[in-house]
């Protein structure tokens, strides 16, 4: 069993209430942080812990904190990004639903470290039932003196509010989120200035993912030294993985970074293997945006080394033969899955979610959706495959925010690794008109057959 920093007590009855949460050591980090540490010490501690942003980008959290403009006279804000919408990702939902207090505790300590008196949780509107769970937990924290004025008798005061979004993936991008929190359309801002200088209401702001903030209490309690003992190198600590698709045991798993991918997929402690006794075909390891990898490349790197669940190992081989840990949205496909159809659903997603601000993304995502739709439905042409690659290339790197890249990478990688399957769709239009084509007759690569 790996170490569990976040989910150790998740199955304790009543853990969503403050008394039970406290009986398991909850809120100890607030006392320790605000009574025995300075904000500067806390920021150093988080830096030293090697905690990296758990929303997907993997940017070092302590470093992000250190960018906060300390000379500004304006109020400073902590905003928690709970807009979890990356297809394949549902870990923040699980964490907030089961353990709301771990987020509140992490926010109080983080606000203290950042010199912020106000924290907002921006949560996707579809998670409205969790808004109520969080608000109840916040109420309890106020009554127990962990929030409000003069927390635990010190001169530190802090308020936390929950703010629901209303259905827009783009608001997971931090500057779009801030626009949305200001009551506007979720159009990402040009950077610089970065939020640490001019964020919410043009004030210094740090935006962190739910899981990143939830890791803060552990780092304070056990020290950064012990936190980064877990994991490998710059992939420190534990990570929540959302496992979905064709596996026996979909769900949320807290893993120690460094776990072999093979063990994660096949061990009964985690995914429990591929369902229905079928074979593994492909994995999207870090949410829909990251490159898809075929079975051989997700289990082993191109160099033949065992692939590990770390930022570095998953990225080994770059985009030629690697992928990214991303948000930890681990989507597994068995031999009957159609790569083209799955990709079409992703392309439709990005087209739907593009904010429309930058032409390459607004137009390009629509083109990719259309072209994939026609290939998948038996109306494609051979030149469509290179057309998709060309459109993806023209989006990538040419937009204000990373949604364009996120839309382009899955397309480019699916064609890189599964080109024959796209060609099959063009060659056999009658066969693919049945939406369940590969369930009836799994696709077998012709080149593999010839080699055999």
């Amino acid at each position, binding site marked *: 069993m790996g170490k569990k920093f976040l989910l150790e007590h998740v199955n304790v009855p009543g853990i969503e209430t403050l008394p039970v949460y406290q009986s398991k050591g909850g809120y100890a980090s607030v006392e320790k942080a605000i009574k025995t540490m300075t904000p500067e010490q806390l920021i150093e501690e988080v830096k030293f812990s090697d905690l990296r942003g758990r929303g997907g980008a993997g940017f070092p959290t302590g470093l992000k904190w250190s960018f906060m403009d300390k000379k500004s006279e304006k109020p400073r804000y902590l905003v928690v990004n709970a807009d979890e919408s990356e297809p394949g990702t549902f870990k923040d939902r699980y964490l907030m639903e089961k353990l709301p207090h771990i987020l509140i505790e992490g926010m109080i300590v983080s606000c203290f470290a950042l010199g912020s008196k106000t924290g907002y949780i921006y949560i996707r509107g*579809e998670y409205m039932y969790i808004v109520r769970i969080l608000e109840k937990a916040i109420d309890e924290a106020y009554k127990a003196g962990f929030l409000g004025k003069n927390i635990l008798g010190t001169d530190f005061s802090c308020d936390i509010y929950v703010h629901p979004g209303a259905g827009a993936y783009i608001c997971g991008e931090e500057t779009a989120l801030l626009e949305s929190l200001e*009551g506007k359309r979720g159009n990402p801002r040009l950077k610089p200035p970065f939020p640490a200088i001019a964020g919410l209401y043009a004030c210094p702001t740090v935006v962190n993912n739910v899981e990143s903030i939830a890791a803060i209490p552990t780092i304070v309690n056990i020290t950064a030294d012990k936190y980064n003992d877990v994991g490998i190198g710059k992939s420190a600590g534990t990570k929540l993985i959302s496992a979905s698709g064709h596996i026996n045991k*979909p769900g949320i798993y807290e893993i120690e970074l460094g776990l072999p991918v093979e063990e994660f997929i096949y061990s009964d402690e985690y995914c429990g293997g591929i369902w229905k006794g079928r074979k593994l075909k492909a994995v999207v390891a870090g949410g829909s945006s990251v490159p898809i990898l075929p079975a051989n490349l997700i289990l082993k790197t191109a160099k033949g080394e065992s692939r590990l669940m770390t930022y570095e190992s998953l990225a080994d081989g770059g985009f030629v033969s690697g992928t990214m840990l991303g948000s930890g949205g681990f989507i597994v496909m068995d031999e009957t899955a159609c790569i083209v159809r799955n990709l079409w659903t992703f392309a439709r*997603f990005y087209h739907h979610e593009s904010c429309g601000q930058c032409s390459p993304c607004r137009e390009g995502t629509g083109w990719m959706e259309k072209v994939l739709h026609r290939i998948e439905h038996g109306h494609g042409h051979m030149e469509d495959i290179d057309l998709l690659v060309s459109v993806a290339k023209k989006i990538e790197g040419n937009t204000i925010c990373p949604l364009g890249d996120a839309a382009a990478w899955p397309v480019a990688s699916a064609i890189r690794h599964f080109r024959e399957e796209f060609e099959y769709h063009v060659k056999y239009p009658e066969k693919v008109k049945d939406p369940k084509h590969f369930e009836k007759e799994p696709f077998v690569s012709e080149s593999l057959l010839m080699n055999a």
Partner: protein
Amino acid sequence: MEQIQFSEDTLALVNRIIKRYPEGKQKSALLPVLHLAQSEFNGWLSAPVMDYVASILHIKPIEVYEVASFYSMYNLKPVGTCLIEVCQTGPCWLRGADDIVEHLQNKLNIKVGETSSDGMFTLKTVECLGSCGTAPMLQVGAAYHEDLTNEKVDSLLDKLRNENKRSSYMK
């Protein structure tokens, strides 16, 4: 015409929401207040309802329209008593979301995007709702219905029909 006015309780809640944001930043309350408005005024946002929200928050109507039209949870046209939103993105598709949509279309005798002739159900497909581990799934109001089968869908439809209550994200 019917007077558009929040109930006293809702108005009190709106004022509490406005206080979450700094003085002069009441526009921040727009998204939460639009959710309340949609819930209170028949499940959709008409132009007069949006104008009313603008007047409460002291902003221009256009500032409300441009926001309401951006976010997918706001309905700019009337919807049935129960809005059924089925997730159709990759992970749900892998676990059979298409079959659930087809079953719902047959059962309700409507296509995606339409409302049943009795005005009871509107069927909509949506993008990832963050329930990939319990796919396929659908949302009605604030409630998630997960690990769906056709049988589960049937009993849910019966339940919703019997309750005959307007679905709302706020309840």
